[in-house]
């Protein structure tokens, strides 16, 4: 007798299962399908091409009406199952149809997750799940206007690209810092973001949606930071949840999905689960390849062959947006037991990364050039030992075939180039021109070639090629080690990186690492703080300071001590204080039982031994007394020491205290390459010790002498004289312009005196004292930058910023920890 097979759901997985079943045993079952959607089985993965207009619905139908008829399948379209009676072995639909089963397959798929924000139920807010959603999107797009897509994963980006092609203004909101973070590392996520922006799609990362606004229809999306984005259509594509309701109601075992064996059997032996709703081996699946594998296994079991078992395999991810090539597979996290091979070709927009463990591929991310994805996947699946071809692995399969697996000598490849082969694309410089210049001018280094030919003087990506030309021409006379790289993550030196950040308009750390071909995926503790400073300095209004790239002192605005406690120094402008300030400090010291109080070398009061957890409360009390952070921890403006000047002193020539306070109020909050200490002395007796400071001012009868480049630490060095200023305003302009020049030109952690030694006193005098328009420009850039820098970090944190920094994540008590 024919058994009765009932299937709840008519998606791709049960469709594929039936294909297998009818092939193996055409007459074994009498099949009934209940489909909540009012249509036949279609290829859901191809909804994006339907949305973008590249395909029609007819193109993506898998099983047409004739197929159901020819297999004698009863298809109830638009019927949702509301109950399973396991004793009677029946299912009942919302339209009152009941069917009896011998075997039941639950293939209810998944539901889109809707973020529970106000307004999520407004008309115009859609998920992206089925053809109904696509039809509503197409309808909305015909009116034009603006769309917001919430979710920068696979589905969200495909929806965004489709809506853009349909003529809408599209903004993608993504809660994480980079797009598709589950499939892509930050570098590839950055490239993807650039490409989407190039196509006119706005992308906002780290975007927390607060509410969807509108009265009878969606009107705008509001972010947590208050940003309002107008929208006539909102698509939510933030994830899916297995649709397990009917199984749970029936009392089947349900975890994240409906729990099955590796033969797809649920806790009831007559019932099977298949597809996105099923959980096998603790995993639920959303991509089609593993779901089709489940379909194959289940079909075999239904025909009585129980040998096939579902085994987890990593599935590659691809983005279906025409013109964007992206491929990700397996585990691409870093690890000590892993090696990575990274290839970046910035001009071609290519990024490839292979992760190896024990000489075998375990993961890969490809962007821009994905042809070898399948080959890498194959090597991974077969766990092929790649040590023999490791050096050239990343160049792909064709390379191996051409070379027979032998790595090529890169120098030989450059030697083989003809004289008219282009080396520098930016400046159109060919190899012959470079070799000609080397011979004619007797050049011996990269800077010489840059000066005479312009090769490698723009984007710098051909630097390696130019160096090989030098090496071929000069042999051992060429010494490439002249430039010290910033850190082992790059071959570029600090100056080169600073030049390229400005020249190429690089505005984020991932952008710098991608464009300058960093060899690690997220840098190290040496380069990250340096890059963060360079970006803060060069793009003050645009760059979002990356706190995770700052040293702890700058992150918590206090100085870490050897026992892990902190010291706190409030600002006392120009070293002046008052009875009420001193009283407030005394109260704080008592209240928090601060163990040590000390007067610093910079005329301030230091409170030492404060527990990290107490910092916000200490600041709150100090803030109420009018104090701001003294930034005694910062690679930035520290203190301006002063003497009492002509206000009190019988030798004083000017108001040195007033000028010191004015300088400090003007310059506080600014970040600099290394710490910056100033002093103003009221007469040449120099009681404020201005002549061993980074910048010092000595007041004289005729005005102000400006000094700089002193040191009184590891090295002891008296200052150089920069020049004379007649008025206080002029003195301020010179000091500020010099600071800005130092901010823009010095290397990270390089004090003023070392920078001066490197570039020479005359060069600084030329730029600050002789070229007045340039001095004014430096001054103006500093003033602009201060608009974003002068925020008191203490009051920000008292009002709640970064509060996670100051609290433990959890406190586990004795009871809980007891065994």
């Amino acid at each position, binding site marked *: 007798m024919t058994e009765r097979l009932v299937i709840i759901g008519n998606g791709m997985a049960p469709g594929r299962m039936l294909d297998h079943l009818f092939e193996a045993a055409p007459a074994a079952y009498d099949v009934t399908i209940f489909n909540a959607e009012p249509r036949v089985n279609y290829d859901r993965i191809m909804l994006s091409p339907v949305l973008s207009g590249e395909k029609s619905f007819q193109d993506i139908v898998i099983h047409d009406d004739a197929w159901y008829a020819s297999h004698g399948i009863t298809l109830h379209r638009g019927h949702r199952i509301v109950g399973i009676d396991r004793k009677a072995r029946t299912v009942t639909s919302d339209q009152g149809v009941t069917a009896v089963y011998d075997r039941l397959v639950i293939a209810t798929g998944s539901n889109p997750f809707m973020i529970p924000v106000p307004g999520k139920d407004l008309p115009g807010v859609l998920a992206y799940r089925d053809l109904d959603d696509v039809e509503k999107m197409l309808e909305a797009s015909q009116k034009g206007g603006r769309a917001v897509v919430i979710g920068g994963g696979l589905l969200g980006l495909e929806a965004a690209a489709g809506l853009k092609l349909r003529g809408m203004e599209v903004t993608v909101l993504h809660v994480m810092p980079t797009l598709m973070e589950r499939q892509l590392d930050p570098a590839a996520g950055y490239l993807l973001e650039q490409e989407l922006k190039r196509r006119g799609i706005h992308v906002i990362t780290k975007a927390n949606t607060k509410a969807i606004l509108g009265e009878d229809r969606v009107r705008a999306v509001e972010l947590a930071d208050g940003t309002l984005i107008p929208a006539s259509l909102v698509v939510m594509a933030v994830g899916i949840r297995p649709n397990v309701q009917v199984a749970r109601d029936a009392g089947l075992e349900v975890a994240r999905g409906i729990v099955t064996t590796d033969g797809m059997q649920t806790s009831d032996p007559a019932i099977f689960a298949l597809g996105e709703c099923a959980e096998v081996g603790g995993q639920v699946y959303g991509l089609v390849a593993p779901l089709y594998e489940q379909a194959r296994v289940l079909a075999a079991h239904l025909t009585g062959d129980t040998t096939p078992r579902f085994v987890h395999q990593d599935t590659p991810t691809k983005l279906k947006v025409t013109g964007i090539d992206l491929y990700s597979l397996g585990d691409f996290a870093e690890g*000590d037991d892993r090696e990575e091979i990274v290839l970046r070709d910035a001009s071609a927009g290519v990024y490839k990364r292979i992760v190896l463990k024990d000489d075998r591929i375990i993961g890969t991310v490809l962007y821009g050039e994905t042809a070898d994805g399948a080959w890498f996947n194959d090597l991974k699946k077969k766990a092929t030992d790649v040590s023999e071809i490791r050096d050239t692995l990343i160049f792909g399969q064709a390379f191996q075939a051409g070379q027979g697996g032998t790595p090529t000598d890169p120098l030989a490849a450059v030697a083989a180039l003809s004289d008219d082969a282009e080396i520098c694309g930016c400046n159109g410089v060919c190899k012959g021109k470079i070799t000609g210049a080397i011979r004619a001018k007797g050049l011996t280094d990269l800077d010489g070639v840059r000066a005479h030919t312009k090769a490698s003087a723009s984007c710098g990506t051909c630097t390696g090629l130019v160096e090989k030309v030098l090496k071929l021409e000069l042999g051992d006379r060429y010494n490439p080690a002249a430039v010290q790289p910033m850190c082992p993550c790059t071959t570029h030196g600090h100056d080169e990186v600073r030049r390229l950040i400005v020249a190429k308009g690089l505005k984020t750390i991932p952008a710098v690492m991608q464009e300058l071909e960093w060899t690690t995926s997220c840098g190290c503790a040496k380069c990250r703080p340096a890059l963060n400073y360079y970006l803060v300095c060069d793009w003050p209004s645009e760059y979002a300071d990356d706190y995770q790239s700052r040293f702890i002192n700058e992150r918590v605005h206090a100085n870490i001590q050897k026992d892990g406690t902190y010291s706190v120094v409030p600002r006392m402008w120009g070293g002046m204080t008052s009875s009420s300030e001193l009283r407030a400090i005394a109260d704080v010291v008592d209240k928090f039982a601060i163990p040590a109080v000390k007067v610093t070398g910079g005329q301030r009061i230091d409170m030492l031994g404060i527990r990290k957890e107490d910092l916000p409360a200490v600041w709150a009390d100090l803030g109420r007394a009018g104090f701001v952070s003294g930034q005694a921890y910062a690679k930035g403006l520290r203190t301006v020491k002063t003497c009492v000047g002509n206000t009190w002193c019988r030798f004083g020539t000017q108001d040195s205290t007033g000028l010191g306070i004015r300088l400090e109020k003007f310059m506080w909050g600014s970040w600099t390459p290394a710490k910056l200490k100033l002093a103003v002395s009221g007469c040449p007796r120099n009681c404020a010790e201005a002549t061993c400071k980074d910048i010092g001012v000595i007041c004289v009868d005729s005005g102000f002498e400006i000094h700089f480049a002193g040191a009184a630490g590891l090295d002891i060095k008296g200052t150089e004289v920069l020049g004379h200023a007649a008025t206080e305003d002029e003195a301020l302009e010179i000091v500020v312009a010099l600071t800005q020049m130092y901010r823009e030109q010095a290397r990270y952690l390089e004090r003023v005196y070392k920078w001066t030694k490197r570039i020479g006193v005359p060069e600084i005098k030329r730029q600050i004292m002789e070229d007045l328009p340039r001095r004014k420009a430096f001054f103006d850039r500093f003033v602009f930058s201060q608009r974003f820098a002068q925020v008191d970090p203490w009051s920000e944190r008292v009002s709640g910023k970064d509060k996670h920094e100051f609290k433990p994540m959890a406190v586990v008590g004795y009871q809980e*920890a007891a065994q």
Partner: protein
Amino acid sequence: MSIWIDIGALDDLPLRGSRCVQTPTGKIGVFRTADHRVFAIRNECPHKGGPLTEGIVHGHSVTCPLHNWVISLETGEAQGADKGAVETIPVRVEGTRVLILRSAIGARVAA
């Protein structure tokens, strides 16, 4: 049977950042790396006991804020020329929650 203790939500951990957990046997540092993996180690640098949670997180390592030792989050071992190791604590992420192994934090009570 191993028992796991819930110590908070994954979202409480900043990316490329860390938080500390107080236990009767001392502080534990919990780290979240750029690739979204989570690690836990004793929060004491093997060099001079520096609080590793205050360091800069890069790759699967953290640089101690006191003297720049680089500690592997996976093995707890000091990298490069420095020698020493800090105890690693089993940690896992379940959905949106982060859990640590109870026996690992109680171990020193027993000893």
